[in-house]
């Protein structure tokens, strides 16, 4: 085996070890969410990660029965798809009050897949466009 291929093999092994140490899959199907079920929660944004392969919104929700706010984490698609849906990495900022429409995790824990995010202070509704781009972004 030539040195070049030894390097390639080492790189592959490094990737494998790296992958083996990963705590979970960053890129995955959204079948973990109940896509036919939509819930809505309001809360205050803790963080918005503009990250491949999936962006993540964390926000604090006050329980209906009172008590300390609880953190919820919601996933959506990639920066590329969101950009073409009209989002930017600054669309949602820490401290923003939001209403999040989402498909919940099947086990009932505090997570879900985002259907839409409405910024309560401005009324702007952010959605995801996966199909034929809107007419206003189709060009002559």
């Amino acid at each position, binding site marked *: *085996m*030539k040195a*070049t*291929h030894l390097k*390639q*093999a080492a790189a*592959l*092994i490094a*990737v*494998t070890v*790296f*992958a*083996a140490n*990963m*705590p*979970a*899959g*960053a*890129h*995955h*199907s959204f*079948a*973990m*969410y*109940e896509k036919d079920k939509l819930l809505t929660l309001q809360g205050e944004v803790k*963080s918005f*990660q503009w*990250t*491949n*392969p*999936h962006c*993540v919104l*964390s926000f604090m929700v006050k329980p209906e029965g009172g008590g300390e706010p609880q*953190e919820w*984490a*919601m*996933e959506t*698609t*990639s*920066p*590329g*798809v969101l*950009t*073409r849906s009209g989002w930017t990495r600054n669309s949602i900022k820490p401290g923003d009050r939001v209403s999040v429409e989402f498909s919940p*995790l*099947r*086990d009932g*824990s*505090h*997570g879900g897949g985002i259907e839409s995010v409405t910024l309560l202070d401005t009324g702007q509704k952010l959605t995801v466009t*996966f*199909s*034929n*781009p809107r007419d206003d*972004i*189709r*060009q002559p």
Partner: protein
Amino acid sequence: MSHRFARLVTSCVCMTVVGILTARGAEIASDKISAPPTLRDYEALAKLPDFGGTWTPDVPDQERQETQNMPPWTPKADQRIKHMIAEDDAGRPFPIIDHCFPTGMPSYMLFTHNAFELLVTPGRVTLLGEGDGNRLRRIYTDGRAHPADPDPSFHGHSIGHWEGGTLVVDTVAVFPQVYLAISESVGVPNNGDMHIVEHLHLDGANVNTLLDDLEITAPKVLTKTWKTTRRYYRTRQQKFGIVEGVCPQGYFSEAVDKNGDAIFKPVQFRNGIPVGPDSSK
């Protein structure tokens, strides 16, 4: 370690071993050189249809084909596919793409949700996609043949030629481990000897729709050649261009270390969702 994650690790290790075994030394397929392009070569490009802009896949159509255009699976593959569909419906998706390797061919064209651009240059067509970090296809249109014994790769070795306004692409030498999949969580490894023929062309007068007519022959998992057409929509607005999409970035979050340096720090996962820097690392 969960069974699912163990399968993923096993798959990665197998891919590594195969990668080592298939490294064949510094073989050179031929002594031919690529001549520098001439003005005539560039003028010839102007006669081809314009494939520029950003091409976004028709995801709803992808999802329709998951149920309405099932590949002709072998009985053994079909049994596994049915099990995966049932698992998917139950909220336990099989981790086909979790490793963040490129999805490879033909998944690049079949079920990915991200856009790509298509660059036509003398002797070459190049597809550059976003997501998975390395979604790159090189299609040689300079008249060369496939190497006699090409090194396998995620996207295979592709040669192409133009028939009028249609780009005909022939792809071989895809890693046997690359999934032939109908979605992000349903598919089987192609297991070798896969051959893909594509006819890429604009949709008649609708110049903002690109069609890829695929003919996929995979004798280890299909009983006959599977034909499917995939659709992509063009946008030209610069703000909707391709963005970088490095998949493993999802395992990290932006943070500042004790030196005040900006770093990427491993994230914690909660219920499978990355939720911020892991303070223990």
